[in-house]
């Protein structure tokens, strides 16, 4: 199973990203576990400096933006 993490301290944009990711995973029947990380120490552990951020299988895919739907799906499918 693919692990997908959405990093963000709780502002509107991170919540938007989280719901978008959950919705995409569900709609496309992707076998992934989506978790939201709002603990700062954990976030910084990934080395990101801007939130929200998307992490797939422990690799940081982007930070500071809300990526396009196709992009999110592609990243998750590439695992």
């Amino acid at each position, binding site marked *: 199973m693919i692990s997908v993490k959405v990093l*963000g*301290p*709780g*502002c509107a*944009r*991170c919540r938007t990203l989280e719901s978008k990711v959950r919705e995409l995973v569900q709609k496309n029947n992707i076998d992934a576990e989506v978790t939201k990380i709002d603990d*700062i*120490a954990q*976030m*910084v*552990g*990934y*080395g*990101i*400096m*801007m*939130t929200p951020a998307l992490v797939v299988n422990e*690799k*940081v*895919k*982007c*930070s*500071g*933006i809300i*990526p396009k739907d*196709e*992009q999110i799906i*592609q*990243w998750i499918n*590439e695992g």
Partner: protein
Amino acid sequence: MQMTEAAVKRKKTNSGGLKDVLKPFLFLPFWILIYWNLDALTSYLIYSVLGLSKGDHFADSLFFFVYEVPKVLLLLVLIVFVVGIVRSYFSPERTRKILGGKKLFAGNVLASMLGIVTPFCSCSAIPLFIGFVESGIPLGVTFSFLIAAPMINEVALVLLFGLFGWETALLYMSTGLLIAIISGYILGRLKLEKYVEPWVYEIKAGHIEQSEEKITISQRISAGVDAVKEIVSKVWIYIVAGIAVGAGIHGYVPENFMASFMGKSAWWSVPAAVLLGVPMYSNAAGIIPIVQALLEKGASLGTVLAFMMGVIGLSLPETIILRKVLKLRLIFVFVGIVATGIIIVGYLFNLIY
């Protein structure tokens, strides 16, 4: 907007080539045509089509509104596009690399300048702060960055340029930079490291692998386009609302009304304006049209700019977020020094103008 180099590499496979690069530039002739003819177009609409007369309160307000909204939006689109492209050259990771190891004052100057081109949303304040501190960037330099980034953003500069001319925009930018550099420098010299929450120095920050991947021109252009879509869609409503308020003030408030309490003669107006502005938070887009109207009615430039810097430079949400990494005393010192800097700048402007 920021992407890791690996993510940018993936995006490359999806973006077109020359077509995507040229598309945005096709808008340019239309932009120029509309922009240069705004006055004539608006006059035609208000005086000929609607038959209103100059000097009529409603006509004046409407003219202001119809003229300013497209003008400001056009400017915004252009500048956000350009800055979006410039930003693709400066990721926070790269900024961090550039700032690492610089001597104190030079670091403050660089950090402040980089703060202008780096996008900033309040919630990024913490990871950014930690990221900088963890890579050994001095506290004072980090503060210079944190002061410059929200205060001097391209939306504010565009609006100042569009509504007041390039001299005012330049003045705002340079004094903002000055405040960021000097405040950061002073904060650095005060040796306030002990007031940073200890856990900040204890966590081990990861580092994103830096691949040698080059970003193509096409990707930079699409970074510009994305920036326009994202920022303009967020901000246009505040601009329209702000201009509407400004239009009302322009048409209906009597001349020199503001002079009595925001004019030069009231010595207390500068500190009062800053004290009023600091706890307020608005994005630059909404506040500037109001600023324009206030100026028209006799408020002095120094007071009004000080107010604006207070509103967008220091915000309550940001200080609340920073409380997680900074002890209360440091937050007060931080706010106090920046506010003092803004007040001094306010007085300076009132003196010069």
